[in-house]
């Protein structure tokens, strides 16, 4: 019996079979989750408008319109701890002059959020949950550092890399 257990442990000890073992565990867990129904809480912290609601109203900033007039009154940003975020809503309402021009002449300004400078700054991303956004990019940064270092080492070689330092 003990011999069998040790043989099983040795089988998942190898690096290539470890991934398969983990995938098998994931398959079992997913199978458990498949046959249940899920009850969602109606009182969500980060509310969203109904799908296509702003789009059908002809809003050029759909689906990211959070209201507010620049420098007059803030937009609507719901947050968990309002006492820690005294100036929330002011940045969301602000648009650069170019974006304001684009919003006047196009119906699809909200969906081109990344393709022009100074679009709508989403405060949920950059203010109330700002640490998350920083971390997401730093994960990619760490992965890129590791990958580029290994590739450089494999292509130009150990000796050349040392010589380069001098």
């Amino acid at each position, binding site marked *: 019996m003990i011999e069998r257990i040790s043989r099983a*442990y040795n089988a*998942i*000890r*190898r*690096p*290539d079979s*470890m*991934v398969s*073992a*983990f*995938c098998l*565990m*994931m398959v079992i*867990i997913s199978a*458990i*989750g498949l046959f*249940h*129904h*899920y*009850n*969602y*809480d*109606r*009182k*969500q*912290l980060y509310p969203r408008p109904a799908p296509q609601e702003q789009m059908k109203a002809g809003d050029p900033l759909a689906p990211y319109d959070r209201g507010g007039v620049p420098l007059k009154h803030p937009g609507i940003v719901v*947050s*968990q*701890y309002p006492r*820690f*975020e005294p100036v929330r809503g002011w940045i969301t309402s602000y648009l650069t002059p170019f974006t304001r021009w684009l919003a006047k002449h196009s119906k699809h300004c909200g969906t081109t959020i990344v393709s022009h400078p100074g679009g709508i700054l989403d405060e949920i991303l950059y*203010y*109330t*949950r*700002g*640490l*998350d956004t920083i*971390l*997401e990019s*730093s*994960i990619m940064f*760490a*992965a890129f*550092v*590791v990958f580029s*270092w*290994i590739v450089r*080492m494999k292509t130009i070689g*150990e000796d050349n*890399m*040392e010589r380069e*330092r001098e």
Partner: protein
Amino acid sequence: MYPSGQILYYIPLGDIVPYISTINAVILALLLAVLALPIFSNTDIYVEVDHKIPRIKAKIVMPREDKIKAALALGSTMAAAGVVTTGDVFNFTLFLSLLGICNMGLIGTTVGDEFALECAFNYGLMCLIAGLPLFGGAALILAGTGTLSLHQLMHMPPGAGGWAMEYGKILLTAGVVGEAGVGPFYAVKVDSFRRIWGRYAFVIHLTTLLTFSRYLEILASLP
């Protein structure tokens, strides 16, 4: 109310409110002590003893490899410090992903060792797959209860969120097991530890262990 004892200090950082409680402070102190170890030690020659054929193998570590490993060890420890102090479930998963990537890099940047590279590849693959249950679990907790903040989740009555919450916990556990490499998936990391030198192996070891102890505290505070 807090399962980890009295809350000593919190940082008001938007919706994410990192906090230090009694147990967290002990774990954090231990982590920073671990970080001090690679800083003050200095290993330039890595010695390996083979017991089957009595021989001693020595390898001179080049400064550049030492440098990248020190940087990744710093990143790993900082991510672990974030894991220990964070007050938000989604933030916890993000810090854990950063930890997994840095630990993978620590194994993978070993020069002149094919096996270490293979280990790092498979471990990285597992980190990638574990991202799915990790973020899926956080999403299900948000869907079931409507919030992600641990300070709010602690005050909820037991049974809040129903099955979405329970399944979210299962998925989160699977994600932590894959990302930190605990349980039966620990074996390959032990194997790859022998390929890198002691002080950085120590960093991987302790960050994942303390991460899991912190995860148990989060599990205790979820409804």
